[in-house]
């Protein structure tokens, strides 16, 4: 691990300002992903700004009946929150499907959104990776790609976003709230939060330099039946091959987001509109522009079947 200096931030705006003015600075919250990457020297911050003491650890009701989740709310606490369990059970289920008990106790809401891909070539510093080292190439395209993206990727990168939580939040129309170094705030729909890799896969989100996530806001609960189903190589403590987050209403309408297939949770309004027609119609719309590798083409069928199982479960 490279040496770094360390400070504790006193307020969100000060943290953002410190990050903007300090070369090589990064925020650290739970640290469960950042420290892993620092040990491998994939991340090499010269300065860490510890945001754990900031008062961003509350879950509050918003004026319109929604929920504001502080950036530092731990995954365990969000999954166990009484109101989340009752009104947004999709989010509890997705969180509980991710990581381990130890990691969920430390990992934060904002950190979960900003975690890096688990593409094996991103992690292997002996291999080219445009995300880790821009311009070096992508070893995954011709390599072991079973786990990787089937849609939304590019000739530069086919990494997936590994979060379960983000998939549920996408289905729930979450918004990411931030503060900039100058103290101004933004409210970014999760829909547009992750950048498509294109030719710049090292740029993963629309956040600007120093911009700090302060909370994630969910609109008022939409009711319906919530189902999160994750398919993976072992029953627990593994990343998704495919995951499906669905909210299904009594009339068969609803919304669905798919994880493990792209750089962002994958959802479209056109596909949502097909929900009453069933899994095949939804899947056809969602993955109309899929471009899988021979090794991960199975994910398209797996996603359709998982969606079928989810819709069957939602019907009871």
């Amino acid at each position: 691990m490279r040496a770094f200096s360390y400070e504790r931030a006193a307020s969100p705006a000060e943290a953002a300002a410190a990050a903007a003015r300090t070369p090589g600075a990064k925020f650290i919250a739970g640290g469960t992903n950042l420290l892993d990457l620092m040990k491998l020297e994939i991340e090499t911050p010269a300065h860490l700004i510890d945001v754990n003491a900031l008062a961003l650890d509350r879950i509050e009701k918003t004026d319109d009946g929604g929920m504001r989740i502080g950036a530092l709310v731990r995954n365990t606490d969000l999954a166990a929150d009484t109101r989340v369990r009752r009104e947004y059970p999709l989010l509890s289920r997705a969180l509980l499907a991710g990581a381990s008990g130890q990691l969920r106790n430390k990992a934060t809401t904002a950190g979960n959104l900003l975690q890096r891909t688990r593409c094996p070539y991103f992690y292997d510093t002996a291999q080219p990776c445009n995300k880790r080292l821009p311009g070096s190439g992508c070893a995954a395209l011709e390599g072991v790609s079973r786990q990787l993206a089937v849609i939304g990727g590019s000739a530069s990168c086919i990494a997936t976003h590994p979060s379960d939580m983000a998939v549920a939040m996408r289905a729930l129309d979450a918004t990411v709230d931030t503060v900039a170094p100058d103290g101004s705030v933004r409210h970014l729909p999760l829909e547009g939060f992750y950048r498509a890799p294109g030719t710049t896969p090292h740029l993963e989100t629309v956040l600007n330099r120093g911009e700090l996530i302060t909370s994630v806001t969910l609109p008022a609960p939409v009711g319906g039946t919530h189902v999160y189903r994750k398919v993976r190589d072992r029953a627990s403590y593994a990343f998704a091959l495919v995951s499906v987050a669905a909210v299904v209403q009594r009339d068969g309408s609803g919304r669905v987001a798919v994880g493990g297939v792209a750089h962002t949770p994958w959802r479209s309004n056109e596909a949502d509109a097909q929900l009453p027609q069933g899994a095949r119609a939804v899947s056809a719309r969602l993955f109309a522009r899929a471009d899988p590798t021979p090794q991960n083409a199975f994910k398209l069928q797996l996603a359709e079947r998982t969606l079928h199982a989810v819709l069957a479960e939602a019907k009871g």
Partner: protein
Amino acid sequence: MDRDPALTLSRRDLIKAGVGSASLLSLPLVAQADASAATAAAPVMAEVSLEVNGTPRTLNVDTRTTLLDALREHLHLTGTKKGCDHGQCGACTVIVDGRRINACLTLAVMHDGDRITTIEGLGSPEALHPMQAAFVKHDGYQCGYCTPGQICSAVAVLDEIGQGIPSLASESLTARVRVSPDEIRERMSGNLCRCGAYSNIVDAIAEVAGSRT
């Protein structure tokens, strides 16, 4: 800043030109290192105070020191084990302020003022913690390397169930969580045992859980 300001950081390197003294004063705790390439490798030292197994300890550590290395290399509490050092195996599991975490994936300097419980703090050879005794009784290990992490994790798992924290194995998110082999297996999935003592580990934890209800 409501945390103990006892953390003081030595400044081995000159403060960067871009960080003025006014902004330094506005930040409660700052360790500065020159981020330029020539001196980027210079270690930065920091002082941190922890309460480990009920005893206050103050350490001067490189900022890179994980909580795991602080426990093992600085405090010589070698019960907590380093397996993968990447949060995948759970051998380093300790209990911080009542919650189990991977000690390898957190920095010592991030725990100023925190209460840490390691396997040495749970019980002793003369007075075993009930979970330790159950692991012995059920032969919940072979080589024993993962055992301290398994036991710290197991103790915390029963607390989590007691607090009503659900798991992926919980059929209902709103009903009371009941201890079952499926619940134990799911909640212990962050602790690997390459000897494969899992079935005996589940038996040990189930016995301790049963004795509590």
